[in-house]
Structure formats: C-alpha cells, structure tokens
C-alpha cells in the first residue's frame, strides 16, 4: 500500500491505495471525480486526460503514487463556480461534441495545447489533439471550438458571444438571429 497525497483542483487529498492504482481510478473511485472518463484504458483515446503540474497526461497510464505531491487539475476544477472556463464555454457554444464521452479529455487537452500554442492553426490543432479520439463528431466542431477557445483566451470576444452581449438595437438583433440560424444550419450540414 502507498500513501498518496496530491492536490486535486486546489484541495489536498490523502488516501492509502495499492501501489498499482492508476491515477484515473484514484480520481474516480477514491475521490468520486467521475468527470475524468476511462474510454479505451489503453492510452489511445485521451478521455482520461488531466493535468499534472500543469501538463496534460493520460491518467489511465499513470500510477497515482507516481504523481505523489503533485498538483492535479481535472475537468471538475476548470469552471469557477457556475462560470464555465472559456474552453468549456466554446465547446458548448460550438457544440464540439455529440455523445459527450470524450469531451472532458478533449477540453483538458485543449487547455493544455493552448498554453503552449495560444493561437494555433488548424494543422496545429489537429496535431495538438492527436492523443484524443472522438467517435461521433468527425472533429469539425471540436476544431471550431478550439479556435473559439483560443480567441477567448487571447482576450478577443468571439463573434457569437459579442452578439449575445449587445442585442440593443432590435433590427440588428433580428438580423443576427437570422444569421446565427443560418450558421447553425450550415454547421449541421
């Protein structure tokens, strides 16, 4: 048995677990943080991505005891109360998901990628999400969501959020509503 003491989402946690306990299982079974998903369990799919000392890792391929003393950030630690993290907000607004199973990992990987590459090209986004699989979306809206997250994190208001924030003039608001419907249709296609 090993005593694992780590900080998870800013809270100190201490548990005695078997040495072979994986970080993903530690988070889910010991701490009840089930937002970290286990998809493939063979380090292919990236659903279990969390941050250890600020870097994205696949928690199904790391022993809990291996990261003793570390700062761990999971999907549960991203939002500030009811205010979503910009990457979460962008995934929601761009509908960067279908079933949602891969989403926690996609979001944690995106947060990690944008630290290194704040203004990624499409190619860099695809390379940066290489460790994450989505079996529903075909990645189109995920890439869109990453682009929007990057804009938001760089301090630029995304087009959609700006529209929502300033619907003062009725005519303009109606025009924009039409536009966004069109955009939605186009996205569905």
């Amino acid at each position, binding site marked *: 048995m090993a005593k694992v003491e780590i900080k998870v989402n800013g809270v100190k946690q201490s548990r005695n677990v078997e040495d072979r306990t994986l970080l993903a299982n530690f988070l889910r079974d010991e701490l009840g943080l089930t937002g970290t998903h286990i998809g493939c369990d063979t380090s292919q799919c990236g659903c279990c991505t969390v941050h250890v000392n600020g870097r994205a890792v696949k928690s199904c391929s790391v022993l809990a005891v291996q990261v003793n003393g570390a700062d761990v950030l999971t999907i549960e630690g991203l939002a500030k109360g009811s205010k979503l993290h910009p990457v979460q907000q962008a995934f929601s607004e761009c509908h960067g998901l279908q079933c949602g199973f891969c989403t926690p990992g996609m979001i944690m990987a995106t947060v*990690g990628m944008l630290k290194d590459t704040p203004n990624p090209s499409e190619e860099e986004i695809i390379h940066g999400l*290489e460790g994450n699989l989505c079996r529903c979306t075909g990645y189109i809206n995920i890439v869109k969501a990453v682009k929007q997250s990057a804009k938001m994190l760089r301090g630029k208001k995304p087009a959609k959020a700006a529209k929502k924030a300033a619907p003062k003039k009725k005519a303009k608001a109606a025009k924009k509503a039409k536009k966004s419907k069109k955009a939605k249709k186009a996205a569905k296609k």
Partner: protein
Amino acid sequence: MYALNYVKVKSLAEAAKMLASNPEAKLMAGGMTLVPTLKQRLAQPSHLVDIGALPELRGITAKAGTLTIGAATKHHDVATSAVAKKAIPSLAYLAGLIGDPQVRNLGTIGGSVANNDPAADYPAAVLGLGATVVTNKREIAADDYFQGMFTTALEEGEIITRIVFPVPRRAAYAKFAHPASGYAMAGVFVAQTSDGTRVAVTGAGPGVFRWKAAETALGKNPKAAAIEGVALDAGEMNEDIHATREYRANLVRVMAKRAIAQLR
C-alpha cells in the same frame, strides 16, 4: 496489473542498489510504455524503481560539437528546447512526432532508448547520428548498443544516464506514421557528417538498422537521386496486416529520399 511495489528513488546509487537486491525489479521513468505493458499483464515486476524525477538525469546541454540529453528528459522538453532546436533541429522535430502530446509530457528519451521498440522514433536518431549511450557503468556507441527488437547492449542493473549526440552538418527525419498508432511504419533518419552520410531506419525491420548501401551511395554529398537503385532487401523487412515486406522496403526508400530533401 499485478500487484507490485513502487519506489521513487532519491539517487542513481539507490536505484542501482534496488535493482541489485531485487532481480525482478524494473526501472521506470515516464512509464508511457511500461504502464500499458503492466496493465496488459505482459510483465510482472516485483518493484518499479522510479528514476524519472532524478535531477541528474534531466536537462539538455550543447557544447563543443555535441548535444547531451539527460535520460529522464521528456519528449516535450526536447521538442521545445531552444538548445536542441539550434544544435540538431531534426532531433527536436523527431521528439515532437512521438506518440501524442500527453505521451510527450511524460515519456523520456532514456526510456525509449532502453526499451528499443522496433518502431520507436528515438533509436533512429541515436543510430543515425552515431550517438553515445552513457550509463552508470560505461559509454556505449550506438552501433554496438542496438541489437534487434527490444534488445540492447544494456546489462542487468545498468542504467542509462544520458545520450550524447555529435552535432552533424545537416540531418533530417522522415516518418510514415501508422495512422492509428502513430508508430513508424518506416522512419528514416539521415545525418550528413564530415565523414559521410549515415542512414538509420526504424519501424520497417525487426529493429532499428543502418542502410549501409545507401550510405555508401550518398557519400559526403547526399542527393536523393543517388539512392534510386540502391539495394534494400525486402526479405529483411517486417510483414503484417498493415504492409507487405515489399511495401515497407519501398516506404523506406521514399522516406529516405524525403529526409535527404529536407536535410538542414
């Protein structure tokens, strides 16, 4: 995973002691190959001796025509290191192709070279550049170090501490990655030095190897056209559901040409 004991050692000496007193113990650094292997119950070590956090095994330094990378240096750190990019840009580029971002955040050069997966990227650079593998006991030339699939010159209890790369005039790595696994179906590292050109191939055969006929043909002034008709025995290549021997042999030639075209 079978039950085991995990030990995070505080020094190289402690690691060597642990290995000496526990014959079934295994070294661990990033664990990016080892943990998945353990999960599949393909190995049953009594102890995991974690050397990943030892400061003496970390770091990237350049001096007097060499680039030295500590064994526990992570792929991400090599891929993004200004020192590595300046000394051997193709090596930093290669490190950025390994696995995926999450794997590169944990996986280490020493782990990759010790494991010697026949489709891993680093062995191609270590052999292609004619690097020296430094252990806690001795220095091993790359030509003597790699001995086929998952086999190296490392003895029981021997620990890689760093890899010393001679800085070439120019070098390049071209990889045809398997689209699902990301491993090299064929990866070719070409290095042009003052003595001539070295060509190391990973992924295509049962272990990393030098394509010596191509090296001779390329000489001191490598041009892609020079290897057009150079012999490469398809019988020596791997064959599996992904590609036939002949297909892999052709891929090696194509990757070699691409590498030569990208020499920098």
